[in-house]
């Protein structure tokens, strides 16, 4: 396909105030080599649908605002290429979230779920006003988890949430956040053992979340499996610890 030939895209539109059901509309957009899905959406908004709702800000994959589903897969629209061999490009809002309008969704449930865990870094050394000594071998694992940009793509991808298997599941993004704190070398309060309350066992380790993450975070290995192991070892060791500790609480 050459530049300026037309490519057809479909956008799933809905204003919940007015429409009961989402509508699918087709638009014809001039193709340019290298264009991103977001370029096509901007083109449609500027030329055909002034009030088409979508989010973007940075255009370089770091703010995490522009996630939407392209041909049923959640991606960052600013990063996802429109290739000429894509037969139909169908752009829809992320499926697990309530729609505010068109491609804009309400992601607040993700934050609500995690806030009850008080996801705070806690360290008693705070009072000393001295810098810490930490080595990169210690910080490495936490560091990679902490590159999460809150795009919510993994949350939308996970079948447990997507297929309504268990809406209470805290979701991969939140596990990444909590373990990102837990793995901080100076953190003294562990969130992992609490994660049973977030229904972590609903996750059957399909690794789809890891495959979807635009930051290439090893969500399953580095956070979910780690958390499950922590829960198990806590369970095994707790009775033994209690037995041997002097001040039994």
């Amino acid at each position, binding site marked *: 396909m050459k530049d300026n030939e037309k490519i057809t895209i479909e956008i799933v539109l809905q*204003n919940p*105030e*007015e429409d009961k059901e989402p509508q699918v509309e087709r638009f014809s957009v001039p193709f*340019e*080599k*290298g*264009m*991103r899905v*977001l*370029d096509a959406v*901007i083109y449609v*908004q*500027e030329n055909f649908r*002034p*009030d*088409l*709702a*979508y*989010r*973007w*800000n*940075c*255009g*370089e*994959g*770091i*703010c*995490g*605002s522009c996630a939407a589903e392209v041909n049923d897969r959640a991606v960052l629209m*600013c*990063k996802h*290429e429109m290739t000429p061999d894509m037969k139909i490009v169908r752009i829809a809002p992320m499926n697990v979230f309530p729609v*505010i*309008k068109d491609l*804009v969704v309400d992601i607040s449930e993700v934050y609500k779920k995690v*806030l009850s865990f*008080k*996801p*705070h*870094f806690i*360290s008693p*050394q705070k009072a000393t*006003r001295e*810098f*810490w*000594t*930490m*080595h*990169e071998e210690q*910080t490495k694992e*936490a*560091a990679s988890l*902490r*590159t*999460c*940009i*809150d795009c919510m793509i993994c949350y939308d991808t996970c079948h447990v949430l997507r297929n309504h298997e268990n809406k209470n599941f805290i979701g991969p993004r939140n596990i990444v956040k909590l373990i990102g*704190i837990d793995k*901080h070398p*100076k953190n003294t309060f562990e969130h992992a053992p609490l994660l049973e309350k977030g229904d972590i066992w609903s996750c059957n380790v399909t690794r789809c979340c890891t495959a979807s993450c635009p930051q290439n975070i090893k969500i399953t290995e580095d956070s979910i499996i780690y958390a499950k192991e922590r829960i198990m070892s806590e369970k095994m060791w707790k009775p033994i610890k209690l037995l041997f500790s002097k001040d039994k609480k």
Partner: protein
Amino acid sequence: MSRNDLETITTDILIVGAGGAGLRAAIAAADAGMTIIVAGKSMLGKCHTVMAEGGINASLGNIDPQDNWKVHAADTIREGQFLNDPRMVEILAKEATDIIWELESWGCLFDRTPEGKIMQRAFGGHTFRRTCHIGDHTGLEIMQTLMAEVRRRERITTMDEVIMTKLLTTATAVAGAIGLNLRTGNAYVIKSKAIILATGGCGRVYRVSTNPLETIGDGCFLAYHAGAELMDMEMVQFHPTGMLHPKTAEGILVTESVRGEGGILLNGLGERFMKNYDPIRMELSTRDVVSRAIFTEIREGRGTAHNRQGGVWLDITHKGKAFIEKKLPKMVKQFKDFASVDITKEKMEVAPTAHYTMGGVRGHAETGATSVTGLYAVGEIAAGVHGANRLGGNSLTDILVFGRRAGRAAAAYAKRTTHAHLPQKQIAKELRRLFEPFTRKKGARPHVLREKIQDLMWKHAGIFRTQKGLTAALKQLQQLRKQTMQVQGSRRYNPEWATYLDVNCMLLTCNAIIRSALERRESRGAHAREDYPNKDDNHWLMNIILFKDRNGMQLKRMPVPPSTLELARVSEEAPNERQ
């Protein structure tokens, strides 16, 4: 909308802007016992600050033990070409260390040295290595740290996707502000005792910019119309090479190391044009020479095809795949991810890109207090600390050091004051302005005006400037201002409506930039006048200040505040090894 269904929310302090500056101010003010609302145009954590890559400066001396705050201050003033407010620079350099400690104690994980201390990298213009960093995503980790601190403080309420469009004032002080909730399309009134502006810079008033979509200088618009002063608006930092295509990637930085590793610049005709500008150093000439050369090629019609007025080619393919992948992995990935260009086989399309706004709202050095009682300005929107040019890595320090100070000062003020009465006339007038464009049957489309403004700024008020170009730009801007705009469709989450509001801000911000650029008849720092190519210390150790009176925008010059003797001495003495 009638005034009856206008929701009014009351708080002690309203913070406009949820970037690093706004969040740090919120934390400080909350810790002083105040209730706070922090409003952002985008969602929490999606602002400009998350994009910061390189790092944050503090003279910890972890790598170069000779470093101290005085050398940091001296470097900052030298790079700022002595236009900085010396007291602000002193505060910045002195409090930087404490800011880093604070971040670390909140769990921010900086990269480490082999001994386990915070790693510090070299950055252009710094005498010593003092830039602390977290990979190439320093801003992201800092924002995540601040967001966690904000969320654990119950006194802070954050509001996502709310555009504050007008500050409400009484004859003596601020009373609150009007905001538009993008998600519902409804307006709010927020009643507050003090307001902190932390809206970030205005890089996006230029066609090509590293800044995110939302960064168009709202703070200037809000402050100016509330009666505060703007300063140093002519000082906008450009980078010689940014990406150009596709549109969403437009402006993303292309590092200088591409040229350093042997990349050559070609115009649209395939000529290696640097031979006409600097035949000896060619592509490795200084930043400003390269920027101007690229810009001249584009302006004179020898540019490439993309993006309205085009750019030039940057080509490194002759170095071979293995070399490029080894030396420039980040660029290989960036062009692949955002433009599907394989830079080992294809040329890159680049153009100069607007990066940072040194100017902005004028505030008190210690607190950020503006000339309007109860109104504070902090972060990239505040003027003064960077002078005529900003040192890399100083901005993140700036937003946190002064964010904390403004938060404390606003809290102290709010404690000893009461809520003012809301000025009903101002509210009615603002609501009319907000909803009017929906009632128009015809009018200009806001995004069309936005592009026109961006193009004219880029052409005439960008990388280099002339009397003639600036005057022409001013005229064009005045014509654009006369056009009425129309907004179509529903009020709920309507991006065109947001653009309409942005365009109104841009018209004011650009007017301020052009007026100041016309006034400064010399070249200094980021401000390059072709018709006045030299620096003129005899006449221009002055800040240009803009303010509003009955006859419109007025301009005055003020001598740069005197430096403390000690600082003046260090800035002259400081060695300059690592330029």
